């Protein structure tokens, strides 16, 4: 293959250099990133050590107040294998998660369209605002007693309350997102011939997505908080029930296990929303 220029082995191939330049990552010295991680790990290790010292070793905090690491582990194993309050950790966790997902999905299915409606139409907003303003300041947890009066101690009441908790942030954040869309973009769409539907679907909704996702995150948080509360007040099954039963049995290790489970699930679901956000919003607005 003569005729092609010889590659100079001392030069970096153009492709690689370009790729490196494109990535444009800020040059943090390797040392600094590790340092933060190291200190973090040390901190967590230190806390663990403290925990162990205060409970197992010195007994400064009695077993009836807070479990020692060993007890915690034993309880975790117990619920994971034999189960507690009617089910294993997985079944209880799934039961609660299922309720959260159901309530959450219904909430965004109703809240986002309502937020869109109130956002694009000042008239719709004026009409619906009074009802919304009245209902909004009532904390979702405050609906629990009413929900139980109406629907009993079963799943339906829980879903109603979760729905309500997740509904409000969805509406508000979607509404805010719509109102925040750059008016010039709307004008640009109109001058190029967009009708109402296209304007809604291709300009207003994408423009509101960032705020909508903030609403989703808040809704999810509210859903978990409300579920735990609702299950604590009265439930037959679920993580809240586990918490309640552990409390009645005066079983601190199990209480701690249930709390941890709630925390982990909350973090996991939030992470899922963040991942969805990154995939649906690949542009930087």
């Amino acid at each position, binding site marked *: 293959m003569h005729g092609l220029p010889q590659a100079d082995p001392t030069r970096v191939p153009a492709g690689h250099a370009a790729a490196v330049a494109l990535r444009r990552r800020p040059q943090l010295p390797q040392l600094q990133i590790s*340092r933060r991680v190291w*200190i*973090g*790990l*040390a*901190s*967590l290790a230190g*806390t663990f050590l403290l925990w162990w010292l205060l409970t197992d070793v010195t007994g400064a905090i009695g077993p*009836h*107040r*807070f479990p020692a690491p060993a007890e915690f582990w034993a309880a975790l194993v117990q619920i994971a294998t034999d189960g507690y309050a009617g089910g294993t950790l997985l079944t209880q966790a799934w039961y609660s998660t299922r309720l959260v997902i159901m309530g959450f999905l219904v909430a965004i299915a109703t809240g986002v369209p309502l937020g869109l409606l109130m*956002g*694009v*139409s*000042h*008239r719709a907003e*004026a*009409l*619906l*605002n*009074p*009802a919304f303003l009245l*209902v909004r*300041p*009532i*904390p979702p*947890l*405050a609906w*629990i*007693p*009413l929900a*139980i*009066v*109406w629907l009993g101690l079963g799943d339906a009441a829980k879903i109603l309350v979760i729905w309500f908790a997740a509904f409000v942030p969805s509406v508000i954040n979607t509404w805010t997102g*719509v*109102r925040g*869309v750059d008016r010039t973009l*709307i004008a640009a769409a*109109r001058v190029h011939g967009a009708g*109402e539907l296209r*304007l809604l679907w291709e300009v*207003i909704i994408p423009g509101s997505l960032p705020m909508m996702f903030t609403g989703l995150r808040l809704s999810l948080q509210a859903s*978990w*908080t409300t579920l*735990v*509360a609702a299950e*604590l007040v009265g439930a037959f099954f679920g993580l809240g029930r586990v*918490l309640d039963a*552990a*409390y009645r049995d*005066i079983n*601190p290790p199990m*209480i701690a296990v*249930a*709390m*941890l489970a*709630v*925390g*982990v699930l*909350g973090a996991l679901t939030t992470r899922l929303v963040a991942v969805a956000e990154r995939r649906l919003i690949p542009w930087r607005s």
Partner: protein
Amino acid sequence: MAFMTIADRTPHPRELMLLSLVGAALFFGGWQLIAISGAVSPQTLPSPIAVIATAWQLAFEPFAGHTLIEHIVASLGRFAMGFGLAAVIGVPLGLAMGRFRLLDDIVSPIFEALRFIAPLAWVPFAALWFGTGIGGPVMVIFAGAFPPCLINAYRGAKLVEVRLVEAAQTLGAGGLRIMAEVLLPGALPSIVAGLRVSAGLAWQSLVGAELIVASAGIGYVMVQAQSNLAPAIVMAGMLSVGVIGLAIDVALRRAERLVKSRWGQA
């Protein structure tokens, strides 16, 4: 674009006000009609008038041990303690974490680990440690109110221009003075916004805690009413909760606006 007024001209304010009145009338009127018509029993859905009458009545007649006003005072007291504690610990800590990287590195992992535990999940431990006394609800309120205080103070401190801190340093200010006179005022808008969110969460956590582990307070009232199948009282309780929560939010919004107008946005 007649329907999507956001893409066109905003309708006349008077038209909007009229629509709001119509909306309010439809809501309350509809509610009242449904309650009166007998389609749903008053045991399930009391009319709006019944709710207000009940609230008025409870203000002076005791239910579950105290009058409604006394219950509200009890709730507010717990709220103040829990919220106050969260602010007093959270804000300085957040500022310090924003200023001192080492502190941030140490505290952050612990904070992040605990943060995702729903505040109400602390109730069993709170009940175990404090019984139905005031400590229980306060602890739960603290768990709910603490994160926003910390996070917003931290963010606010980070937003304060490094140059301002450096300027203070070159003028001889020590760590504490910098925190108090440079970081705190600079972060104030963010802090106040955080306090508003925190107060909302505190109020919610309070209600939740009182539903489960209290012997007085609005939440306790609602749970008792629920056991007695008295939805009118439950709704009266909800009304009080909503009104007070709104009042707290409005008050803090004003504070936020005041800070913004004097300090500008961070």
